[in-house]
């Protein structure tokens, strides 16, 4: 059932090697049992409250949708559109970098891959803090204005208009690496033989591009676009941290606006706004789904002859050096800032070399009250429990979906679409009804864990399903422990799903804020509170951000090989 199905993470084309017969497998009841946890969580936490939101928004006909007439709402939705347009920019930058790096050797592209992808695991809060610091209006603190100051200019980058540049760059920095990864892999697997043949037959360049290269890139492009779109639709904490308070209204999208105003709007109008937001994201995701459907299934060996270092190629590779430096700069800014005396960070920049100001006092401040340590520990425990729960629910579900042919082929596509839609759904769309339905337990850790898990499960099922479907299983006789076998073979995808869950939960701000849990044990919210006096707390804030960033970065570096394998192949062999 591969081939035409729009799998997510379908970067590498492949043949379906399984036998097209329904093997005698689990009974329907047992198969249903495998699906139970994932379906219960997705339906209970996401679908039912979503339906409730739609119903609330329609109470009294379409009157609630007149919320569109409000100038502030329109401004917020317009901002949302700008953010979604930035998703295209992210793809373009990712593609451009992948094109530059297409002939880079295995070693170089491996290093580049790590450098470019790392920002994706940094919390958007931290990203916002870093870019706010880089573009600080005060030339004594902001490096860009310090450089411009040499030319006699001083620009209020965080002010009206320019703020888009700052946040746009932050957004591109954060997500272009994922697009790069996808395009880089796709370019490496272009059907080289076919291109060679076409060239030999004298087919002109433009036609070669249109009929071979573009179709081969459509699937990966759709995937990159979808990922960037989801990131753009969820822009929230980046604005909260990256823009000065008074500037936030100029750049905040519908999601943040909804969070600030939903109690003023009233239940019906707030629900209508949430539905409109979901529709907006859904509409913009449609081209991606079309692209995923049209993907090609050439099977081309990945092995290529060692590239000869010709002149133009070497020049192209030289471009990669400044890219790598630029991409690492924000990390350097954060670390260097955290290592300076807290008072000094307010009045001078990280590039000033004054040895007596280098110290660990900011780290001391960060841990001074014990609250940060507690939040770190509790967030870690909560995140690990969520990861376990996600795998517990998603692994059997993905296995059953991949190997049991439970559903007629015709219904498989809608199921997949629902999973993709749920993975992209803005939490604002179901927050209020969810909050009310679980209000007796809303503050409990158990409730928080359940909601987090439900949010990640659709994505995890997609990732795992893709890998499990490729595991070769015995044709006629089914082994009793086939699930174990499949999981073992699909381990890279399992690691990928686990790391995705970890990063999403570890960095979460939105769920914490939306569902009104007290902030005391929520690591990113602790960072956010520091930003009240951004300039005078940037030292300890940077120290806390470094610690909060080290955890997911280390995780990604340790599991790097598995992640890459999981993303591109899914299976061990």
């Amino acid at each position, binding site marked *: 059932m591969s081939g035409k199905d729009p799998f997510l993470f379908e970067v590498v084309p492949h043949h379906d090697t399984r036998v097209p017969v329904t093997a005698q497998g689990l009974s329907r009841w047992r198969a249903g049992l495998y699906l139970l946890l994932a379906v219960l969580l997705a339906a209970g936490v996401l679908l039912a409250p979503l339906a409730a939101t739609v119903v609330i928004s329609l109470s009294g006909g379409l009157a609630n949708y007149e919320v569109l007439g409000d100038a502030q709402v329109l401004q917020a939705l317009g901002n949302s559109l700008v953010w979604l347009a930035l998703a295209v920019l992210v793809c373009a930058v990712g593609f451009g970098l992948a094109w530059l790096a297409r002939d880079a050797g295995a070693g170089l592209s491996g290093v580049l891959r790590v450098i470019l992808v790392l920002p994706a695991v940094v919390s958007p809060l931290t990203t916002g803090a870093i870019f706010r610091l880089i573009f600080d209006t*005060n030339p004594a603190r902001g490096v860009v204005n310090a450089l411009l100051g040499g030319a006699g200019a001083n620009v209020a980058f965080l*002010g*009206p208009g320019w703020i888009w540049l700052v946040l746009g760059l932050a957004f591109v920095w954060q997500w272009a690496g994922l697009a790069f990864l996808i395009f880089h892999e796709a370019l490496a697997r272009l059907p080289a033989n076919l291109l060679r043949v076409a060239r030999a037959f004298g087919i002109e360049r433009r036609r070669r591009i249109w009929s071979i290269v573009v179709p081969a890139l459509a699937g990966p492009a759709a995937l990159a676009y979808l990922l960037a779109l989801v990131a753009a639709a969820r822009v929230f904490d980046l604005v909260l941290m990256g823009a000065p308070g008074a500037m936030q209204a100029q750049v905040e999208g519908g999601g943040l606006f909804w969070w600030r105003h939903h109690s003023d709007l009233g239940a019906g109008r707030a629900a209508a706004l949430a539905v409109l937001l979901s529709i907006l994201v859904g509409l913009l995701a449609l081209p991606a789904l079309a692209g995923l459907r049209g993907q090609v299934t050439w099977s081309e060996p990945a092995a290529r002859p060692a590239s000869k270092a010709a002149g133009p190629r070497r020049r192209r590779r030289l471009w990669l050096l400044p890219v790598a430096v630029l991409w690492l700069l924000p990390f350097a800014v954060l670390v260097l800032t955290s290592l300076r005396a807290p*008072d000094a960070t307010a*009045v001078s920049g990280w590039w000033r070399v004054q040895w007596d100001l280098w110290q660990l006092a900011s780290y001391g401040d960060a841990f001074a*009250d014990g609250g940060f340590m507690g939040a770190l520990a509790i967030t870690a425990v909560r995140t690990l429990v969520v990861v376990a729960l996600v795998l517990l629910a998603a692994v059997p579900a993905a296995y059953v979906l991949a190997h049991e042919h439970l559903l007629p082929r015709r219904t498989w596509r809608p199921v997949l679409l629902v999973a993709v839609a749920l993975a992209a759904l803005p939490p604002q769309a179901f927050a209020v009804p969810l909050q009310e339905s679980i*209000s007796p*337990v809303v503050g409990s850790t158990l409730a928080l864990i359940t909601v987090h898990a439900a949010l990640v499960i659709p994505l995890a099922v997609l990732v795992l399903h893709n890998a499990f479907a490729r595991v070769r299983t015995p044709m006629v006789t089914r082994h009793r422990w086939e699930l174990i076998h499949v999981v073992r073979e699909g381990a890279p995808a399992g690691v990928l799903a686990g790391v995705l869950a970890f990063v999403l939960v570890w960095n979460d701000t939105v769920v914490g804020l939306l569902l009104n849990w007290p902030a005391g*044990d929520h690591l990113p919210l602790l960072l956010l509170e*520091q930003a009240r006096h951004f300039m005078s707390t940037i030292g300890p804030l940077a120290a806390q951000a470094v610690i909060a960033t080290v955890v997911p970065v280390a995780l990604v570096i340790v599991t790097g090989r598995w992640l890459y394998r999981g993303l591109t192949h899914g299976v061990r062999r």
Partner: protein
Amino acid sequence: MSLSRRSFLTIPAAVGLAGCAGSRPLRVAVVWSGDELRRFLRVVKDSPYPVTVYSAGDNIAALLRGPSGEVTPDVAVIPRLGLLYDPEIRRRISPLTPIRRQPEFWRDLASPVPGQVLGAWFKIAHKSLVWHRDGEGLARPPTLDAWASRTLSIGAADGWVLTDWFENVLLARSPSTYSKLFSHGESSPELWATGEVRQALEQLATIWQQGVTAERGRRALTLQFHDSILDVFTYRTAEVVAAPDFAWPVIARYHAAGVRAAHFRFPANGGAAPPLVVGGDVAVAMSGGTADAFDFVHWLTSPRPPGGDRSDTQEAWAAEGGFLAPYIDASISPPALRGAARDLAGVRTGQYDLSDRLTGPLAGGDGRGLWRILTELFIAVTIDRTRPATAAGTAADDLVSAGSRGSR
């Protein structure tokens, strides 16, 4: 439900073991961060009750209004009086019994319902001060109009800085309008449509336009409160900054060598009395909290014996400056702040911060209500150089329509 958040919070204290055993520390929610939070932690260290403090930041309203009483803290120190007037939050606050002995003005503020005192003031603030470098011959402008000659530093990135400006101008011009808006601002949109509000907005717009160039205006929108103080006392790029008494520790921390701070009162309108806008943080015990919660609020806000005792952490904070309280003697403050402390001790006619008192769509917060409308006014007159009368008209219309959204 077996693993409730409450038990979970104590885990760090109990080193990860059964967190439910023993008495649970009081959970105290505050809004401070950085220096102020550190000072507050120093205060509660002396408390006879075990306490866990967490900073809810500007989201404290969401926390107190949250869907479940289960997760609200035992004690909250609330920076926005309006939250006491919010019907949903008010239900969750236990009235203090017996009624605490705080000055009448402050006690009345914390009584949204007559005869029922919901909170006791922990910290109060004087918001009608203008700071400048000492010894540079700057004197208080005799009238509001005379601001024009000064280079103003305004931390316009913080909405509350702009509302403080508006409140001072409005109070200087028309105390009676201020008082009406204070009592019924969110339920009577027509109050915002009066000529007094429009004229105050226009005068404010004029002051901003004259004191801030387009380039400085653009910069001002990126400056938070602390930054605006640096401009006067560290970089000397501006002459004056209107800021509350708690600017003092910031000046003390960052001032350039040789610079001393001085301040005068916000200018009056013509021959009238200068305005006095006050603010503060009120401590409340939440319902569901234990008796300890009441005792803690009492302990936190109980009057100190006259004379001063520097071993008391709150009095030590007051002596450092940036902390005024109705239960601490004015003479303990640093000499430069004693006048402000006395103003507050005798406050009768002064008015509480209007934007902190409002509820509903006019209530503050980044990108919301009065904060947002005044930010737009600031942008219009300083960057776009719109005529003050036009910009003020737009702002007044926005206030009326936001007000009517709330009373609908």
